[in-house]
């Protein structure tokens, strides 16, 4: 028997009961096969890509019907949480690009979505004698955190951005580690069956991570950009796709794969402002694009969007840093110095702001 901290991810097909009613048995089975294959490819590739050993050493996972369960316990909880958030985004992306959903999109119907619940907490790993007797010698994972995650996952239907819900323990961990780069909605207190008390649940409203696309299985990566671009042209695109696609355009600009991606990105960001509720991330991306895009470079516009972001989130460190850099580039030294000091006021350990202030002091 071994107790450990695990990050747990549950995912399942939303409205699968309704789908089962409306589809023939064969059509429903085809959909399930497509779903299971997609989950298998994404999760197995992800764990290998990020160096998980699997087989109960640091992770294990299973697919049953329309449900995916992933347990990560590498003893580095931040790593596991980031991994779980990546898996959540990647399975949603892969399912959107699946043959089943592409057919649905062509017929201009609503795509099938995946709801995800992620949480972390203590679990017990143990080998059960009765399982050994039926030839299953692998360890069993049990714990309250698992039951809670299942409940959190069931609440994902109420989400309207990523439909990835997390529990309080994971939320707190992400708040402590800013490098996770994930933003959550305000908490929703839900009463779950059998738990007897209100449990706060948070929806992921923004998850910026450049590794989402590069860590996808190679054959899925090929047409993913095109499929995402087609999806955002759809009448009712899901908000999270804008964030993933915009981040992918920025990577294309940074790596020099497409120097004209800034034009497409700015257009998409304008469109995203109408769709995405959590706007600071879009304002920041526009600020970045107007500062670094060769074709759209316009520091005044960048400054404008960063101001918009700071209007919503005055402590947004990324926006403060960009603003300070733009002021520096514009030759507004005093204002730039003031902006860097503002960053240090929020986070006195900020390495870039500290270095800049030191340079200003040395110059005087």
């Amino acid at each position, binding site marked *: 028997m071994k107790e450990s901290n695990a990050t747990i991810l549950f995912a399942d097909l939303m409205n699968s009961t309704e789908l089962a009613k409306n589809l023939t048995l064969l059509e429903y089975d085809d959909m399930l096969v497509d779903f299971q294959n997609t989950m298998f490819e994404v999760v197995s590739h992800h764990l290998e890509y990020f160096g998980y050993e699997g087989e109960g050493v640091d992770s294990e996972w299973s697919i049953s019907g329309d449900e995916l369960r992933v347990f990560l316990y590498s003893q580095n909880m931040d790593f596991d949480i980031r991994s779980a958030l990546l898996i959540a985004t990647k399975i949603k992306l892969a399912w959107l690009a699946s043959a089943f959903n592409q057919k649905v999109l062509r017929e201009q119907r609503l795509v099938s979505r995946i709801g995800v619940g992620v949480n972390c907490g203590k679990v017990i790993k143990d080998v059960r004698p009765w399982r050994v007797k039926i030839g299953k010698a692998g360890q069993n994972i049990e714990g309250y955190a698992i039951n809670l995650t299942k409940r959190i996952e069931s609440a994902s239907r109420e989400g309207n951005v990523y439909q990835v819900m997390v529990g309080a323990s994971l939320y707190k961990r992400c708040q402590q580690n800013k490098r996770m*780069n994930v933003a959550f909605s305000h908490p929703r207190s839900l009463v779950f069956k059998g738990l007897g008390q209100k449990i706060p649940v948070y929806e992921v409203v923004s998850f*910026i991570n*450049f590794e989402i696309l590069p860590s996808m299985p190679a054959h899925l990566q090929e047409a993913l950009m095109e499929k995402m671009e087609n999806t955002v042209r759809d009448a009712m695109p899901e908000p999270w796709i804008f964030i993933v696609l915009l*981040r992918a355009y*920025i990577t294309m600009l*940074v790596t020099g794969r497409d120097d004209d991606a800034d034009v497409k990105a700015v257009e998409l960001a304008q469109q995203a402002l109408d769709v995405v509720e959590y706007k600071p991330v879009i304002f920041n991306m526009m600020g*970045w694009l107007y500062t670094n895009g060769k074709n759209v470079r316009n520091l005044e516009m960048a400054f404008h969007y960063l101001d918009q972001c700071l209007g919503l989130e005055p402590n947004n460190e*990324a926006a403060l*840093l*960009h603003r300070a850099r733009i002021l520096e580039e514009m030759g507004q030294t005093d204002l730039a110095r003031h902006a860097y000091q503002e960053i240090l006021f929020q986070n006195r350990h900020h390495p870039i702001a500290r270095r800049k202030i030191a340079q200003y002091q040395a110059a005087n």
Partner: protein
Amino acid sequence: MSLGELPSSGIYLYIALGLVVLLVLLYQLAVQVRARKKIGELEKRIAAVEEGQTAVFANVEKKADTLKEIVFEKTKPMTTKLNELSKKVSMMLERNEAFRRELEDQIEPVKSSIDETAAKFNTSQDAMRKVVQDGKNEIDRMNKEVEGFKQEIRKVKDFIRDGIIDLEL
């Protein structure tokens, strides 16, 4: 006619038949005499032709002998000259052969030495070529490694830059 009259008619028939046979025999005799006469004449003609032929043969042989003598007389001095020339050529060839042997005897050590040197040169050239080729292969391999390393560094740089950008968005 009665049967008793028959013998007297048969005698006439016999006489007639005997006359026919006699006439045939006489005709045959006449033919044989004429044929013998013709054969005699032919034999005479053949004998005359044979005599003429023998004379012609004798004449031809005589002419051939005369021609042979004339040709021999005409070619004899030339043959002598040719023999002399042949002797001179043989002598020249012998002298040449002796000179060649002498030359070969003198050249042989030099040639061996040159062959040896050439073999040594070829060996060292091969060794040198191998060393150069090995070096080239090594440089190619190193170039590839450096290229791979460059790509890897580029990927790491992109990875780090992309990771930093994540925090700035």
